[in-house]
């Protein structure tokens, strides 16, 4: 018998949770559309795909927001340090001879 060390090593089908709930007609239609289009084999996996996409969008928004916040929050010293490094690495990259 094979033992999985962590949950993430298990195939998705082995650690699924059962839910019983109602959703809007629109949402149901969308999930069925994912199945009929062949993107996923079952309604259950259509829910997984929809959640995965939502989490991906959430992560993207968080990364964009926090990256912007990082640069916005830099003080005078921090901005000067970034500018120094920026011009130093830009000049060094310029030295690479791609002809070699």
């Amino acid at each position, binding site marked *: 018998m094979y033992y999985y060390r962590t949950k993430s090593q298990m195939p998705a089908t082995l650690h699924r949770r059962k839910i019983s709930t109602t959703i809007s007609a629109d949402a149901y239609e969308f999930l069925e559309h994912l199945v009929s289009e062949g993107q996923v084999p079952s309604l259950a996996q259509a829910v997984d795909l929809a959640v995965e996409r939502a989490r991906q969008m959430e992560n993207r928004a968080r990364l964009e927001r*926090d*990256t912007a916040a*990082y640069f916005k929050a830099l003080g005078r010293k921090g901005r000067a340090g970034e500018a120094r490094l920026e011009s130093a690495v830009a000049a060094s990259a310029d030295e690479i001879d791609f002809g070699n």
Partner: protein
Amino acid sequence: MAAATHDHTPTPRRGEIWTANLGHPPRRHWVLIVSLDSRNLSDRVSSVLMIPFGSAGAEGPTSLRLEPGETGLPGPSYLKGHFITTIMKACLLKREGRVLSQSKMRAVVEIIRRSFDPDAPWEPPSAAGRK
């Protein structure tokens, strides 16, 4: 601080901290080697991938604060993944004493990835701590 100088083409390894000449006119900076050793040690490739240390900054999706005990540098420093670039091996002046641990290098890969991949996983440290 332990240091080695060289009078031939340097052979840096991934995870090593080096003093390097960057920019025009050249100024000394501490840099972290991030490219794979197959490239770093090859005599057919004259450049390596590196990211520079900054003494000022803050932690963020693409920036990682390191303590002197981890780097051997004189004070806290910030690795900036958004400045990943190539550098000629000839610009590497001196190998510093410390090599970053595997787990720190994992974190370094993540800050670099977040600088160009919108789908790179990111949880702010405070949010991760709540889990």
